[in-house]
């Protein structure tokens, strides 16, 4: 895919450092096995940030640590000035961060409507729920045609759209996506990124995503981070990373 610099909208938020998502020196893992050896990362308001790196470098683990699905053994996670480190996952969601887990991230036996209902779990105001639902169907009209269809009967691309729509129900300020294009055909990869960009442009939602397709990820983001073996390797403006010889050779196939 050719570089299309105009795909990504200019950042909508201010450029102030450190007051949106600020992750510092995170160490975490599964059981006793340490996977992240101290990773730092920042997302600014309204920005799209991509994390790339080889398989097994800890990209998904890092997102789970940010979402508080995994405990942080060291380091801190701050969001909009508040310390998330001691919070449980359900509390993190209430702070305005939504998460789309990797692959088939749906409830197989629930309908589209039920998914949106579950997405609005933390909302108590019925009016807000209705508005959020309308906004979701407007953003992804394809789902509106299948309100009563069970997720397991839908295609992989539709499930991915559903998962994003579900995550947007709480009107988050930051959307975290784990491998949103995993297993999708090239056509659906394009469609998915269009949706992600649309979410960022129209709703002003900041995006942090992990992508195995490094080129596409950098083409569709403002800034990028390259992880290797659970450590930060490179970081910078996506356009610069795309031009960087070392990144090209290692992750972009030339």
């Amino acid at each position: 895919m050719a570089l299309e610099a105009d795909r990504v909208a200019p950042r909508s938020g201010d450029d102030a450092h450190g007051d949106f998502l600020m992750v510092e020196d995170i160490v975490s893992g599964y059981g006793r096995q340490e996977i992240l050896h101290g990773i730092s990362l920042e997302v600014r308001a309204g920005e799209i940030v991509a994390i790339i790196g080889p398989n097994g470098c800890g990209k998904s683990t890092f997102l789970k640590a940010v979402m508080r699905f995994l405990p942080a053994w060291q380091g801190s996670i701050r969001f909009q000035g508040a310390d998330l480190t001691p919070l449980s996952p359900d509390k993190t969601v209430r702070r305005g961060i939504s998460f789309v887990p990797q692959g088939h991230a749906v409830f197989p036996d629930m309908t589209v409507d039920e998914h949106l209902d579950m997405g609005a779990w933390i909302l108590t105001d019925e009016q807000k729920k209705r508005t959020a639902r309308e906004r979701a169907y407007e953003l992804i009209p394809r789902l509106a045609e299948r309100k009563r269809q069970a997720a397991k009967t839908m295609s992989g691309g539709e499930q991915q759209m559903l998962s994003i729509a579900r995550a947007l129900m709480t009107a988050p300020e930051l959307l975290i996506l784990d491998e949103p294009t995993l297993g999708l055909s090239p056509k659906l990869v394009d469609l998915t990124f269009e949706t992600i960009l649309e979410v960022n442009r129209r709703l002003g939602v900041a995006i942090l995503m992990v992508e195995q397709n490094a080129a596409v990820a950098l083409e569709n983001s403002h800034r990028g981070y390259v992880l290797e073996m659970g450590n930060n390797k490179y970081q910078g403006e996506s356009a610069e990373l795309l031009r960087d010889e070392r990144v090209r050779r290692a992750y972009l196939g030339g």
Partner: protein
Amino acid sequence: MDHPLQLLANGLVVGAIYSLVAVGLSLVFGVMRVINIAHGDFAMLGAYVAFFAWDWLGLSPLVSLLPAMAILFLFGAGLQRLVIERVVGRPLLASLMLTFGLSLIIWNSSQVAFTTKLRGISYLTEPVTFLGVTMSQSYIVGFVLALILTGALFAFLKFTAPGKAIRATSQNQDVALACGIDVRRARTLAFGIGAALAAAAGTLISMTGFIYPYMGFEYLAKTFTIVVLGGLGSVAGALVAAFAYGLLESFGTAMLSPRIAPALPFVLLIAIMIFRPSGLFGTSVADR
């Protein structure tokens, strides 16, 4: 085949009682991927609550059903929070060993507390005849209650917020977490509900059969087959498979032989494993 209606009725009654144990076992597996070997023991404990309420206080088992369920709900929820929660997400063998150990503890201490004496409640034993089907009132009452309770469970899961949280956790834990659902609470609740339903089954068994400290294992063996038949983690599947199991026992005994009848569910199980490995209603675990 003589008396097909009678065979049908017998199968349905037994199936309804199996279903009370099976839906809970399946629910618990769905929510926490734990095969609870001690699940049958909850039925045993519930049965003893009902028995002693009858023996000491003269309470009808239809009345003591509710306290029996409440007590086992608290017992199950407490056990989950204190012990079982620690093996959630660990390999299946860890939870198998843990719940197997718990089962032995419950079983042995029950034997000390209640003795091995077989007991039962003689209540509503008079038979009634309807459409050529004869059945004691306790069986009929047991059948109706079992249907009401499973119906209540389905309504709870479908329409209430905690029920939806349980279903969501069962279907995809990561997404449930991402929705802001307290999955730990959902697990504790599901475990408590499973224990309460098993207790209800135990209460009904104390009326229609007899009870003893190690009865749990015999019901576990049957309900485990039922749960695999229905698809591990599928509550609707467990319900359908429980009735299928009851009917196979009933018709198999009459049409083939009592020796062959117990093998029929396993024949069905093998057939289903070949043609539909995830069970009647199962979503393949690999898909999740």
